[in-house]
């Protein structure tokens, strides 16, 4: 079986602090891998390494069997195959919703403006945002902004979608409208790696849940196994705390 993404013994440190230590992970096509773990456990760092926003210290990252951690690789070409959505949306405030979405298809993929607009409008319509096409991001609610950010990353037809705590800047009412998009994408067969604190949601979409702790994956398996019947004492401890915070 071939994997969309494969991490082999990845190591990443910032100065003295080792954030990822000998971490390995495989992501088969059409699956969702959910990363959970305490704040500072390295979830964002892992996603940023996959997206080549950070350079790893050791190990290998393979995308469709091709090593992308090779310094000779064209990073722009790699990133065209990866969609990334951030916790803080990061929409471009000087561009309208439609311009945010069509920028990469036009400038990176060389599509015509017309073609890109039609595709963008189709996506906006599908996710109930057609009436916001010409608005600037600061006129949208947080949930709407995050949905636009997801659509923007979908517009380049990524091979793999990386989602980094896309709901943690939103209030509980808005969380669901964003998560329902992710559920739809999962249904479409999009391959995803996502970091989240929403355990209920993780249970719904995850094919595999990975619990990160001190730079490594301490426990992995189906949502049922990891979230309901964790065997590692650290996972149990973490889930207990999440439970106390009322997020399960």
């Amino acid at each position, binding site marked *: 079986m071939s994997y969309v993404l494969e991490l082999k013994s990845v190591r990443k440190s910032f100065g003295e602090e080792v954030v990822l230590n000998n971490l390995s992970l495989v992501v088969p096509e059409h699956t969702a891998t959910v990363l959970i773990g305490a704040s500072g456990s390295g979830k964002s760092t892992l996603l940023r390494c996959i997206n080549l926003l950070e350079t790893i210290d050791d190990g290998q990252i393979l995308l469709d069997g091709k090593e992308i951690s090779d310094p000779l690789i064209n990073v722009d070409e790699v990133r065209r195959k990866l969609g990334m959505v951030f916790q803080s949306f990061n929409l471009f405030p000087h561009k309208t919703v439609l311009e945010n979405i069509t920028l990469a298809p036009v400038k990176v993929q060389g599509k015509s403006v017309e073609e890109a607009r039609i595709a963008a409008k189709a996506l906006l319509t599908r996710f109930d945002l057609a009436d916001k096409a010409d608005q600037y991001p600061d006129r949208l609610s947080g949930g709407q902004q995050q949905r636009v950010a997801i659509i923007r990353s979908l517009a*380049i037809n990524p091979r793999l979608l990386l989602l980094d705590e896309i709901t943690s800047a939103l209030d509980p009412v808005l969380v669901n409208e964003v998560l329902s998009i992710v559920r739809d994408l999962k249904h479409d067969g999009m391959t995803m790696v996502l970091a989240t604190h929403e355990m209920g949601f993780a249970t719904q979409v995850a094919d595999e849940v990975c619990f990160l702790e001190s730079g490594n994956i301490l426990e992995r398996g189906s949502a049922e196994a990891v979230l309901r019947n964790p065997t590692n004492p650290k996972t149990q401890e973490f889930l207990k705390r999440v439970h106390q915070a009322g997020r399960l």
Partner: protein
Amino acid sequence: MTERNHSAWSPSSRELERQGSRRAINRKQVLIAVVSSLLVLGTLALVLVTSPGWQTVKTTFFDIEYGKEVFPTVIKGLWINLQLTFIGGAAIGVIALGLALLRTTKSPTLTPFRFLATTYVDIFRGAPLILIILLVGFGVPALGLKGISSNVIFLGTVAVVLTYSAYVAEVIRSGILSIHPSQRAAARSLGLSSGQTMRYVVLPQAIRRVVPPLLNDFVSLLKDTGLVSILGVTDAVRAAQINASRTFNYTPYVVAAILFLLITIPMTRYTDRAIRQRTNAQSAEGAI
């Protein structure tokens, strides 16, 4: 979507009362402002007019007839200042943008240019403009280079452009640096190259942010074009000087000053407004 109720609304009697009080407060504030202005300005005028030297000052600085006589030559000179400002301004914009981009690039091929740009900015930002004008205005013709014009207007403009490019480059650079790195990360994640990220994402936001300080620099530029008069360019300042030294009456200087103010004051007002709008927009945007 929330349904808004657009049915007819007529203010309650309490609201009408409040509107009445607001109007009364406004009237009172306007009245206070007018009275205090009259008092302050009146006192100043009185001090000026009753001062012992007022009659002499009046004839040597505020000779209306003489002012009318020199007006055409001064305004002709001002036209040169304006041309210098606009042509120089365009050149400054282009050079400053280049310098700012060079100073913020990480590209290794451009390393020597980045170093040169930094040195350039250090030198021209640190030296007084008037020295640069003198050095360029008298130094360049002395070199006797072929093909380089020794026209004083040209050389004066070059000196002003050299100096202002350094100032403006720093303003633009500060704008570029003020854009949050997450914007760059988002653009790069979409596959945009670093050049495309600068051009389509960072620079448009940066320029918008620095428009108010740039307008300030534009006002200063107009005023500083008056300095090229030391090279003998017959701009508004020089035209006034020629007339004043001929008659020992300083009214032409006042005429020149008033003409400059007529242009710069509206520009400054406009800049202030732009800054205010910028601040308001920023607080509405929150973190952005």
